[in-house]
């Protein structure tokens, strides 16, 4: 049986047990950039049996092997790949053929090309043997004025053999369809609902497209790893990529951020409309996990290049997402907090690089270099795709704003990977529940449990918040946030305080490393902090504790 090979390296998975993943431990399919997905984490496709010019389906976790899509199945796909290409028996085998086969853009804004590489800021002449894994992400408006097709493919590799994957929006079914080329044809790998279905959730491409939408991990300024207005991916003077017409169209990731946010929101809106259409939510836990748990994360960092920070430099604003879920609490729920962003003394940051042995490492390639990631202090933050579900649920009155705020204020100093907040999922019904009864049912269950639990329990903390009056909860929460950030602002200037926050960020990075979203060793810096160090928690007095 011929191996499926049109995939890309995922160096961070090399040391994980992946069962039947490809023979080379460094080779796994897929990616987690704007449009990327993987079709197999352990599957082997019988690609020797695939016929040219036929569309197959293979939804990992559902389909044991690829099979031909029926004419009816193909007719039900309403995205541009299906309607413009496959239904007309057009099966482009390279990204160039794909873009040429689509209706040509009539304005520059109808196509945009972006570039990403986790090794992109390591000067090529200093690490000549380092795989740079440069990829294109390409957005296209095919059937209207909005982006409806996203391509992900290798940039510095043979276009005929590098991975080529597409996420395409179906305006009728209101889902993203996920495709990948497996020479000599294409495979449909599922749609957005597949990400939520028990069999396929977390499998194949849905281990990064966790909730069914496109993914851009580094979604916020300075868009670490992406070429942007903040940084240019470094190429050798004679790199043939310079002559690639696609490379010459590359624009900054600041634009892709806007596109990806809108696409995530598009899917969230479609999803909520579908699951609430008859007034009953069949799987309330599927929605509420976005509020109580961390289904995914984004990566954020300071906007300052780490190598330019000197002990006598200006204070360093660390990313707000390190301290709290600022997007949800301060923007979406508009809690009237007035605190400023805590600033760290540059000298503390510089000292920490030595204290903790910061370095970039790719063990798979034998690469190691002292120092932090290109932009300083990268850390996971609450995922836009989680927050967007919560925001839209509030906007559509599926849950009240107060309910969302009370949930998020439980352990609000730990915006991601909070076990306390996750514990409240136990009170979310898993059976079909009327929209009108949903939040009240959860609240009553938590209140009942809280009555029998200590005041420090997550249930009791939620209950205390819930018992605030409608006129006072927002200001009370805002005051707690202001007080907490005041403590952070003071502690971050102390050696022990700053080092605690370095350990806290590393603790959260360890959690991220355990996720399939973490594909490349060079995505994050490593430190001397042991990999089995206890998970750390931030308290409201801005101290850090195991």
């Amino acid at each position: 049986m011929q191996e499926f090979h049109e995939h890309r390296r995922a160096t961070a998975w090399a040391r994980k047990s992946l069962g039947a993943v490809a023979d080379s431990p460094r080779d796994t399919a897929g990616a987690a950039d704007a449009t990327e997905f993987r079709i197999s984490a352990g599957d082997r496709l019988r690609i020797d049996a695939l016929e040219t010019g036929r569309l197959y389906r293979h939804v990992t976790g559902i389909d044991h092997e690829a099979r031909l899509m029926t004419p009816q199945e193909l007719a039900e796909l309403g995205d541009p790949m299906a309607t413009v290409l496959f239904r007309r028996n057009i099966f482009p085998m390279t990204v160039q053929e794909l873009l040429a086969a689509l209706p040509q853009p009539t304005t520059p804004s109808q196509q945009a090309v972006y570039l990403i590489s986790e090794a992109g800021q390591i000067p090529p002449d200093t690490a000549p043997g380092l795989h740079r894994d440069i990829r294109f992400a390409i957005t296209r408006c095919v059937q209207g004025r909005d982006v409806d097709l996203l391509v992900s493919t290798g940039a510095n590799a043979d276009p005929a053999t590098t991975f080529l994957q597409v996420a395409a929006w179906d305006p009728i079914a209101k889902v993203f369809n996920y495709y990948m080329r497996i020479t000599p044809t294409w495979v449909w790998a599922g749609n957005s609902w597949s990400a939520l279905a028990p069999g396929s959730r977390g499998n194949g491409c849905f281990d990064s497209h966790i909730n069914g939408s496109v993914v851009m991990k580094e979604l916020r300024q300075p868009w670490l790893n992406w070429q942007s207005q903040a940084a240019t991916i470094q190429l050798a003077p004679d790199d043939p990529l310079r002559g690639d017409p696609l490379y010459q169209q590359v624009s900054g990731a600041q634009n892709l951020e806007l596109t990806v946010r809108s696409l995530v929101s598009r899917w969230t809106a479609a999803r909520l409309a579908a699951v609430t259409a008859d007034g009953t939510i069949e799987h309330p836990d599927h929605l509420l996990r976005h509020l109580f748990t961390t289904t995914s994360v984004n990566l954020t960092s300071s906007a300052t290049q780490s190598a330019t920070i000197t002990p006598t430099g200006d204070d360093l604003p660390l990313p707000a997402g390190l301290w709290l879920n600022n997007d949800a609490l301060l923007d979406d729920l508009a809690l009237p907090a007035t605190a400023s962003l805590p600033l760290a003394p540059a000298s503390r940051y510089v000292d920490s690089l030595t204290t903790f042995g910061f370095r970039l490492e790719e063990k798979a390639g034998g690469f190691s270099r002292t120092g932090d990631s290109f932009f300083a202090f990268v850390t996971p933050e609450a995922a836009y795709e989680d927050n967007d579900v919560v925001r839209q649920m509030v906007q559509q009155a599926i849950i009240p704003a107060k309910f969302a705020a009370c949930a998020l204020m439980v352990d609000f100093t730990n915006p991601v990977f909070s076990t306390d907040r996750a514990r409240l999922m136990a009170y979310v019904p898993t059976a079909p529940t009327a929209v009108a009864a949903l939040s009240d049912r959860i609240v009553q269950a938590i209140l009942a449990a809280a009555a029998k639990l200590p005041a420090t329990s997550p249930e009791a903390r939620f209950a205390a918040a819930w018992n605030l009056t409608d006129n006072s909860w927002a200001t009370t929460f805002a005051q707690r946030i202001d007080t907490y950030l005041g403590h952070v602002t003071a502690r971050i200037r102390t050696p022990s305080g700053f080092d605690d926050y370095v350990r806290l960020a590393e603790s959260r990075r360890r959690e991220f490393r355990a996720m399939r979203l973490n594909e490349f060793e060079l995505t994050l810096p490593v430190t001397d902090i042991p990999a089995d160090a206890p998970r750390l928690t931030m308290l409201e007095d801005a101290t850090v504790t195991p």
Partner: protein
Amino acid sequence: MSTINAYDPPGRLTDLDETGLKAWNVFITNSIDQAIKGPDAGQALNDSPRSQFYDLTRTDTAADATEAPVTWTAFPRRIKVHSIGDNQRWQRADASRDVQDEYCEWSVTRDPSSGKITQVMFTCEGPEYWDLLAQSSPATVLQLYRTHISPNVQQNDLFGIDGSYQRRNRWNDSTTHGAMHLIQAANTLGAEIELAAAASIVRVVNGQELTTDQELIQCGKYGEPERNSDPHIGGAVNAIARQKADIALTNPVGLYFDDLKTDGWAAPDGSDPKSYWTYRRGDATHPVRAVYEVPADRNFTVGDITINGTPIQYGAQIADFITIRLSAVACRFGQSTGQPQTACVQFPPPPAGPAAPALAAVPLSAHGYRSSPAAPSSLTTRRR
């Protein structure tokens, strides 16, 4: 290709008469000449010559020329990275023109009863053009203000007792009463020219070639590292210089609106939100003035348009989606014989004794310019 005869006005605007056009060309060529020369060693070390920067009117553009557009987001980065959330940063950016430092400034008009935004006007026109226009044709300036800002603008609103044009006047000094042209102290064409020229110096410090935007701006000291624009412009220019090419700013020298993206925007009636973005000054490829406004015959306003489901409540929300552009032209790739600077820019301590006279035409401020001592008034000024 050959030289051009003269630099056109920004956006190829048609306000100037023949005399004004000649004066504008002189202003630009003088600014470029001064920027090519750079400060002498008594004023700044390791900041000249700028041998790879050239004047389109005096030096040929070779056949291998390529254009290199540089774009950046209009929302001020300094505000963004120092704010704890979107609401806070939008409020801050909408509060003062002095923080709108990405070569784009705006003013917001609201419905007095509902508070909803009805119009946001954006400008990226440098103030120097208006200084010159005011000298050559004050009546035109008044007419333009009445056309674009308010019919109520009066002559003495714009001109001082001595007849001099006031860049900051009651119709152009706030985020609520109109934005005719740039007034933030660092937002000038002179700064753009000086920045591009200074960034054309290749630097190899301690044996290492500097290549990143932030390293280059820290070493070259040609602008404010905390902006989107300055490091990015400098990085793009320097990347060309490192290919041993010559660089010039394209004609017409200026700052232009590149685009308004509307991903995730929705109008209440399903109409295209981008259709409400119109350019009001500049030619088709060099717009310098834009307005976001819903026509009166529609049954909604800007404040009813949503972005990913959230209504537009601030002009700054729109600025998040605007990109500003300048364009450079590069040629003679691989032919430059200029040698890299091996050290960073250093400013000598100010001389003892009476304070030296200020040479910049604009007031210095924490957010604005610091004059380049070698430069004549308002020509080469360094963004700081």
